[in-house]
């Protein structure tokens, strides 16, 4: 019983016991001189340990804090922000790429238009489905007589589509450049050092 109680004395000394267990220890301590001495020795040890010397002063506290501040890493950028930044930086490439792709498609459309209008039968022979690519078609009866005006009309339509798309893409590029310029201006303003010592 005494052995069982003794093992709880350090926890009692450290204030870690509560309720019934604490009352049990207190009741035991009131009757047992040996356990009271054990408790006193724990107190004596704690008092003795407080004599353990503190560290001799080496670096002044302000200098220590400055050294820590110098070693502090930059705060980590959130992943979503990194992705947004990368996307923003890649946006002009995407716009130019899309514009180039549309130019290629329109060029192919021009070539097909000319081939089909000059010799529609040739294209039909290759694949009837390709004739669906024609933007404007005259009735069969007028095909031979109206070939060149038709080509001119098709090319004109393609040119208008190309112009509209180019203006849209140019607008996107200009918007991106304006956004980039505004961002740089803001960043430059924010990064002005408070003091330079």
């Amino acid at each position, binding site marked *: 019983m005494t052995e069982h109680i003794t093992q709880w004395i350090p926890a009692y000394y450290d204030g870690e016991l509560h309720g019934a267990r604490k009352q049990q220890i207190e009741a035991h301590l009131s009757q047992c001189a040996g356990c009271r001495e054990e408790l006193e020795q*724990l107190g004596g040890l704690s008092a003795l*340990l407080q*004599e353990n010397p*503190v560290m001799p002063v*080496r670096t002044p506290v302000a200098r*220590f804090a400055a050294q820590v501040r110098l070693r*502090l*890493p930059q705060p980590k950028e959130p992943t979503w922000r990194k992705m947004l930044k990368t996307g923003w930086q890649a946006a002009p490439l995407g716009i130019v790429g899309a514009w180039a792709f549309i130019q290629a498609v329109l060029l192919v459309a021009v070539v097909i238009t000319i081939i089909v209008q000059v010799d529609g039968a040739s294209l039909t022979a290759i694949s009837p489905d390709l004739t669906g690519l024609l933007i404007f078609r005259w009735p069969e009866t007028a095909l031979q007589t109206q070939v060149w005006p038709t080509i001119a009309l098709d090319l004109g339509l393609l040119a208008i589509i190309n112009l509209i798309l180019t203006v849209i893409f140019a607008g996107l590029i200009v918007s991106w450049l304006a956004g980039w310029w505004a961002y740089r201006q803001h960043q430059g303003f924010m990064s002005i050092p408070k003091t330079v010592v």
Partner: protein
Amino acid sequence: MPSTIATDHELIAQARQGDRQAYGDLVCRYRDGVVNLVYRMCGDPQLAEEAAQEAFIRVWQHLDSYKPQYPFRNWVSRIAVNAALDALRRTPATVNVEDIPLEAPDEDPEAQTETRQRAALVQKAVLALPTASRAVLVLREYEGLSYHEIAEALSIPLGTVMSRLNYARGQLRQTLAAQLEAL
């Protein structure tokens, strides 16, 4: 105009926003506590200062995970003791306990009092403990952490905290028996 001193919580909030100056003020407040804790763990002033700096860098990195309802000092102590353990793992044989002078180096013999000899003996006895038991003892005796907080700080079960603490105290009572008698 009356000067206002920012509370710990105000400084912590500012530091969380990336304010390094505010964090520097926090470091100034807690420097002595952290350095002494680490010094008691490793016994080498230079290593203690490096480990203390490392501890403050970790505090900065994990400031977002600090819960204001708990004492900041305890939270910092937990990080500091782990920084000290890591420093001891990297350089385990920095201090030879046998090399610690029993008398403080002082040219004036009168200044070498019994108290100072006793302090050196206590330091030597603490440093002679196994690192794991020493960490528990330092957190309990010098930092006043509860068993539960120590268990969390060192990622060990509560029972292990009690057994390591009992072991450390038992060892110290044997080593410092003469000094305890004199008290």
